């Protein structure tokens, strides 16, 4: 691999890559253990916004995955950093279960709108409230703009469509803090002390996981689990470094070819 340095870090998507809801992807736990034996740093990166870091950790541990809370980096973490930086008081359209990641942030008299994956809040009334705030100058912050995600009962709309709708209504552009934004990946690699050219990303979303990572200078591996649909690998340019069936195959490829 001319021009690339040795691999130092692997970023791994969670929902759709290691598990789908409460079911682990077959063989993923063992594959993760094998990966840990190699000398690479790991970070679990996710746009999941329904759950706090603690919830994510608990679910993954229940599924017998070996990981620690500090290895998890979410778009919620990225959003919180932005709010603190700009000292915004947000109207938080995020699931109740994710609110704990914003504890300590002043939400009185909100002057910013934060939109995550929050089906309960995407009703006409709440969206109208958010719309009017933005029209009056409140910045719109999108935790991410995923088009849809996989649920037990099928595909479901992500926050992306609603953010897009509000951008259209108000002629404003949202600040997106999650994947596939470059800053998200850079922030995730930051405390691992490595550059993008020394890292690879594994995920099930061609645009947000693989496209975003490659755009930041990393290699991307697309897995055919979770929300993957036939032909997704053709939707990004350049195409994924590798498209394979699932996380265990991705790990095999890394162990054999990238170290």
């Amino acid at each position, binding site marked *: 691999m001319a021009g690339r340095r040795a691999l130092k870090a692997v970023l791994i998507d969670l929902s759709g890559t290691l598990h789908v809801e409460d079911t682990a992807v077959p063989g993923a736990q063992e594959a993760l253990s094998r990966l840990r034996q190699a000398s690479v740093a790991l970070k679990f990166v996710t746009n999941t916004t329904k759950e706090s870091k603690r919830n994510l950790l608990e679910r993954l541990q229940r599924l017998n995955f070996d990981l620690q809370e500090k290895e998890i980096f979410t778009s919620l973490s990225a959003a919180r950093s932005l709010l603190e930086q700009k000292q915004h008081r947000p109207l938080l359209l995020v699931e109740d279960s994710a609110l704990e990641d914003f504890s300590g942030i002043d939400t009185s008299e909100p002057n910013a709108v934060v939109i995550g994956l929050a*089906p*309960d809040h*995407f*009703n*006409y*009334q709440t*969206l*109208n409230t958010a*719309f*009017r705030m933005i*029209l*009056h100058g409140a910045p719109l912050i999108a935790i991410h703009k995923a*088009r*849809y995600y996989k649920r037990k009962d*099928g*595909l*479901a*709309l*992500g926050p*992306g*469509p*609603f953010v*897009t*709708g*509000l*951008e*259209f*209504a108000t002629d404003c552009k949202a600040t997106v803090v999650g994947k596939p934004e470059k800053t998200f990946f850079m922030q995730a690699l930051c405390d691992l002390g490595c550059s993008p050219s020394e890292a690879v990303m594994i995920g099930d979303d061609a645009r947000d996981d693989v496209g975003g990572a490659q755009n930041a200078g990393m290699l991307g591996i697309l897995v055919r689990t979770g929300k993957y649909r036939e032909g997704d690998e053709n939707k990004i340019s350049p195409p994924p470094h590798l498209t394979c069936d699932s996380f265990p195959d991705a790990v095999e490829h890394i162990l054999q070819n990238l170290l």
Partner: protein
Amino acid sequence: MRRGHFVMADTGWPGCAKSLKGVILDMCGVLYDSGEGDGVAIPGSIEAVRKLKESDLQLRFCTNETQATRERFVAKLQRLGFDISASEVFPPAPAAIAVLKERSLRPHLLVHDGLLPEFDGVDKTNPNCVIIGDAAEHFSYQNLNEAFRVLIGLEKPVLFSLGQGKYYKETDGLKLDVGVYMKALEYACDLKAEVIGKPSPTFFQSVLSDMGLQSHEVCQHRTHSKTCCSLNSSDNNVVFMSEWALFRKCHNGELTRSDLVAFYHDLSLSTRLGLVTISYSDYK
């Protein structure tokens, strides 16, 4: 009053008015303002419509109203005092039904309850397209998800949007319009919706065909929704006058700048269609 009177040079009226044979009137914000109950007729509009009908100009009305069937909508306008009949009114739903028939499509509907009866005769089994209208409270996550799932499951997804407005004004504030949800579904499914209703050129063309006229023979009078719903102007400051009232005032020398607020129009669309437009600047 005859058309001939308006070609007088001192009124400042565009010379092309000579060839005018028809008028298309927008409705909400031009004939009436929506609000409590039926809303309220804009002063002068009822009389203006009557006079237009008495003239030899052909008259049609177009609207993006999708919270009620054409029948009920027209009945409301009649209650407000307008001399108007269903065959003269062009809302999006009947146009959409014609398109469905033409292309053998069966719709999944995400529209206001009040519009459902318009689709009574339409086969809605095994939908192979989605139609969204101004569904207001029905734009719940669940309903949108259902529409999304129909589209994402189709090999050739087709989404019709009845209008594409961003928002409109109601008595209790600004509300999101169908265009916002159209954009949402476009983004989710990576497709482009087909707009049925204003400002689609096909829609205006169907009105022209019904009148049997060419675009250069028709004068379009409508409001530019972005302007009339802008935050900085309340409807109290905006007076919508019908063309007829304006002609009259010009002719009588009564027109002054302070009278005029109301001629907003979609310049680029009108130009594309070759419609004669009345510009605010003509009356400076």
